């Protein structure tokens, strides 16, 4: 999304981090750069760090099933598909107004800079645009649903 990836993550840079972690047997590496407005979190090891679960709280107000790992490192998954995530908390809208068609549907191809959806936050309608050419594989959130920061919105295939 245009809002976040002003300085996109470079895969070879990530490779270097992973090498570093392996060398020093680190289980977690976090980098937070205020200047570039980006953050990277890498974890190694068999599984997630195990945390205590003092209760069985309700899940976050979302109907997404996937847990974001790092917002900016969208193509960490390594596979064919990428996730486009929410860069703000708000209400997700698929179309500019209730009686208009959605900006995008699964199967659509979008160009860099094309609007994907709206996130309403504090009465402001934020147009969310794609940072790259892509095919929309799946829309992950229902229209008018609340989304949290980092929540996956679209599963896409990056096109060159």
């Amino acid at each position, binding site marked *: 999304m245009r809002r976040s990836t002003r300085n996109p993550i470079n895969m070879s840079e990530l490779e270097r981090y992973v090498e570093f972690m392996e060398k020093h047997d680190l289980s977690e590496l976090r980098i937070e750069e205020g200047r570039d407005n980006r953050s990277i979190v890498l974890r190694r090891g068999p599984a997630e*760090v195990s*945390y*205590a679960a003092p209760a069985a709280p309700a*899940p976050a107000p979302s109907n997404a099933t996937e847990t*974001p790992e790092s917002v900016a490192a969208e193509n960490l998954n390594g596979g064919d598909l990428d996730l486009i995530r929410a860069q*703000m908390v708000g209400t997700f809208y698929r179309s500019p107004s209730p009686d208009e068609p959605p900006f995008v549907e699964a199967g659509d191809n979008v160009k860099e800079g094309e609007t994907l959806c709206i996130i309403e*936050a*504090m009465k402001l309608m934020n147009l969310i645009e794609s940072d790259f050419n892509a095919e929309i594989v799946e829309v992950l959130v229902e229209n008018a649903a609340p989304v949290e*920061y980092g929540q996956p919105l679209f599963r896409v295939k990056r096109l060159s």
Partner: protein
Amino acid sequence: MFKKVLVANRGEIAVRIIRACKELGVKTVAVFSEADRDSMPTQLADEAVCIGPPHPSKSYLHIPAVISAAEVTNADAIHPGAGFLAENPQFAEICGECRIAFIGPTPQNIETMGNKIAARRAAQEAGVPLTPSSSKPPRWRRRAQQEPRGTVETEEEALSVAREIGYPVMIKAALGGGGRGMRAAHNDVSLVNLFKTTRAEAEAAFGSAEVYLEKLIENARHIEVQILADHYGNIVHLGERDCSVQRKHQKLIEETPSSLDAKRRSEIGNVAAKAAKAIQYRSAGTIEFLVDAEMNYYFLEMNTRIQVEHTVTEMATGLDLVKWQMRIAAGERLDFDQRDVEIQGHAIECRINAEDPANGFAPSPGAISKYVPPGGPGIRIDTHIYAGYSTPPFYDSLLAKLIAHGSDRNEAIARMRRALNEFVIEGAHTTIPFHRAVMEDATFLAAKAHTGFLETFNAPMTSLP
């Protein structure tokens, strides 16, 4: 009462607020940064919303994210906790505009007390004793032939004020607070040196170069009065806390009552209540004083929020201050008055921070590998940590608050001592050895510690278990 409260904070204070909500049958929303996804408040709350990346400016301090989270979860109130947005008048204002109740004082209360010069003026008008300062100069005022502005803008003005009120003086940022933005000058030379520096720092840190001068009360105790005020003009003071054991203006140990005698206690309580009433304060708040060796007290500042150390007042009064904040914000009346307030026994809090006291209190974040808390009679623990919890490096170092209550100060200290000896935290250095040493220190045991206590405190913390 509210239906759903969003807790705009993290760590132990977020846990504390969620507990109060649960006891009142109010639903809770935790907001969290990516660094706090698996934190205890996130797990205890009914709902949890990620509001941004780890850096506070993009999450816990980011007003649009917090307000949006309240809107999408239909929270009808926000509790700001302590720190982050708790004393931000714009945030309180925006909550009001969005028809979300702000569980705290009015934006005007926060604004007035947030500007130290305005706060001093308000306190002065309410008859609270002030330290001699640039906002209340003893003779300079008459000479200047004009209403003092309080702020000092030139070196010449500063020198003039300092000579009038007498060295040592504090140069303080008007918008500073919490121990930040202040320097002590002991003579003309250091005043001239520090004046520009402090202004520049104030500009950088608080967005305003405004500074003022205040007489430095040496060997002062930090004593503060807890206030509770509702919308209907009812106001009570709940005893006073001595928070003199500080390191670089950060409180480490707090206790109630202080060693003030009964007459002074009642007097300082009434003065504090009067000051809060003068600004039509509502909610929980604290008026802080410096108290000199002769037990004269001087207004220091007012904290317009719940404080970390509210716990000792809860232990000694049996009142739940966070629930009262919520009730007051929901428009309920205080159902007791000053005569009903009884201070029972003595309570002490030790802040257990992830810091290494043997190494200059250097921060010590990391994964807590073992956690065995103390328990038994008179012991309360407020914490968000547990075995397996990893302390993120982005936030403050407070791991747990250990509170001991006893029938008198001696019993409270004996309990604190044995609880500190029981307490096991592995995986991070903590201030536990420091507190163990203080609990054996003759000055502390004699209740004679003032704010300079730690400068000369030199216990062999490394050799303690």
